[in-house]
């Protein structure tokens, strides 16, 4: 419950500053431009949102760290983290609340692409299965990115450094599968298993597989756990 209170505070806080509007609007403009202009949507002439789901993960590698870079780094820089730690909220609930607030913002951005799906459905016989799969995949992948971004934010007091750390973590997570092609056999199989891209593309084609859902769930859980431990470590100092 306390985590939800923190999440609400985070979400309200985000929308009290222009940055949330700028980030979400930039995401919408870029994803819409890619779907309808950069990708020759009307030339290809297919009723599908696949181009959006291929492009959005790359946008998320920038978008998610941009959301989370303030999360804990800014609190540390402004000295409000210590104040926050005096609240009757556990470290875990605090981290979870911050994560849920950021996830809510990301879900709003993803949700605002629904008019594009409705437009495509109006123009052709759109199969909604892969569309819902794509949205679930974006939320899971975005959640994993946010959790990594929040961890990056907990490691430093500088927002820019937090952004760069977060971006690198997301980028490595997404592209690790590409390394598998050049890695030795045993390592290649492990890297494939860790590939965000592969997991996401399976969900985005319309298949909800417990292996992929559990994978993203554990990435989020592990990242948040390390972040919470990092906060807890501040109490000792």
């Amino acid at each position, binding site marked *: 419950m306390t985590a939800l209170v923190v999440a609400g505070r985070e979400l309200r806080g985000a929308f009290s500053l222009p940055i949330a509007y700028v980030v979400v609007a930039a995401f919408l403009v870029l994803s819409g431009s890619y779907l309808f202009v950069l990708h020759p949507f009307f030339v290809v002439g*297919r009723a599908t949102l696949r181009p959006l789901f291929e492009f959005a993960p790359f946008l998320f590698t920038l978008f998610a760290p941009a959301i989370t870079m303030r999360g804990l780094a800014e609190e540390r820089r402004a000295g409000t983290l210590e104040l926050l730690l005096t609240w009757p909220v556990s470290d875990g609930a605090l981290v979870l609340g911050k994560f849920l607030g950021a996830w809510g913002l990301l879900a709003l951005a993803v949700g605002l692409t629904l008019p594009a799906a409705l437009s495509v459905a109006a123009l052709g016989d759109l199969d909604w299965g892969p569309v819902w799969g794509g949205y679930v995949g974006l939320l899971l992948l975005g959640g994993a990115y946010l959790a990594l971004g929040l961890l990056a934010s907990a490691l430093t007091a500088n927002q820019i450094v937090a952004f760069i750390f977060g971006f690198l973590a997301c980028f490595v997570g997404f592209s690790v599968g590409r390394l598998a092609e050049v890695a030795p056999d045993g390592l290649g199989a492990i890297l494939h298993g860790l590939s965000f891209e592969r997991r996401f593309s399976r969900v985005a084609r319309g298949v909800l597989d417990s292996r992929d859902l559990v994978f993203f769930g554990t990435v989020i859980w592990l990242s948040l756990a390390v972040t919470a431990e990092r906060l807890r470590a501040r109490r000792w100092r």
Partner: protein
Amino acid sequence: MRGRLKFESALALGLTLLAAVLINQVAARWPVRVDLTRDGRHTLAEPTRRLLAQLEGPLDLRAYLPTHVRPPYSEVVRGMQDLLEAYRAAGGGQVRLVVVDPTDDGLGPSERARLVEEARGYGIKAAELTVTRDDRQVRERVLFGVAVLYRDRQAAVPPVQRPDQLEYALTRALRDVLSPRARRPEIAVSTGHGEPPILDSPLAEVLRASGTLRGIALGQELVPPTVDALIIVGPRRALGPRARYAVDQFLLRGGAVVALLDHHPPSTVFPHILVDAPTGLEPLFHAYGLNVGTKAAVLDRQDNHAPAVARDADGRPVTAQHPAWPRSRSLAERHPITRGLASLVVPFAVPIDAAGARGHGLEVTELVRSGAASTVAPKATSPDPAAYAAPLEGEKPGPALLAVAVRGSFPSAFAGHPTPAAPEPAEGAPPAPRDPPRLEAAQGEGRLVLITSGTRLLAADPNGLLFLQNALDWAVTSTELVTLRARAAEDPPLAVTGEQTRFWLKAGNIAGPPLVLVVLGLLRARRRRGRA
């Protein structure tokens, strides 16, 4: 105290990591999946499950899957691994799967040679692919395919281009080894009337996936009883009465005919002039209630293809939008032949009137119709797109039927007519065998696919070939497997929209949601200021 806290923290993180690994292991061991797609295209299809349920002994799947290949085959390999696992899971213990990686760096030369020999015995060939070796990309011939072994039968699945084509290929091989008659369909290809040399072209390799091919000189011989389907593509010389008789008797017997006909081929003397060329089959189709307007041409000035119409000074092809190469998006969505095809370019097509066929009690499916903005011109005499830029005299607006699939008990086109005489054997040649007894009425359900564009249809765009493959599969196999291939087809097409609609759709989707967000933000800020 601090050391203890550090230890507790490290322990908690270690246990969390261990738990995360264990949970993933459990999820990997007992996976649960939900396929959200409309036709369950990522789940084993019912025909596949039914075939697997027929297994009365172990089925061995020996897969040669190179893991070090570059896209798009790397995706195919991963898709194949998943699919083979799904077969094993659905096989109820009867399916034994062995996966071999021919690109494994650990394989020595002798092991490699043994693998090649073994795979060759199963009918698996090496394909030239780009392989990653020591951070370098090299072209190599590597084994790629799956051997399906059941009792004393075996079938080979060659590599496919896209992962969604795998199930069709694998289930087809499964059906081949399970089939009690153990016989591949026999497909006859019409020759001897100026048709393109299909049997000597790469197209033959593609068509062999559907059955064994043989040539047949219609008119010189009747269609043998072993033949399941007959393909007639773009004859340049009209088929005579004896050839028509051969086709008629074949259909009455319950055979299947796939006809891709050209009615406006270029003149052999003046290639820049098109001629009206009846194929000789028109009287036959007329008897079945299908009337083909041989002189007309279907045009579409809005939605068409841009074929290469000339070459520039450097020999590069010059393309131009061509009204006589209409792109049809109005395809029968539910029929196995066209289901999943987004569009089809049908060059220099002529209209078909199929109303009479229904009167004969035949089941008629309109497969391809030209677009709403298309017209029917009374003639086509030039291959030049400029000749069709302005409306021609006598041109009639409205869509036309360009392809049909007909099935049922065909009436005989020769009822009440004498049997056309067999040609005299050449001097010194043995006498021709006697004709089998003439059929006056249908003995089985015949199938006919007719499209009024042939050689250009196959050259215009890849969907032309897919149309022929699907038509052939519909003709020779159960429709279940064709349906399975249709699941692999591309996404549905978009409706044709005007430039203005497209502009507003783009603008609305790119600028609309961010604008709404910004306006909401401004309203919120104003309210906050008001409160303050």
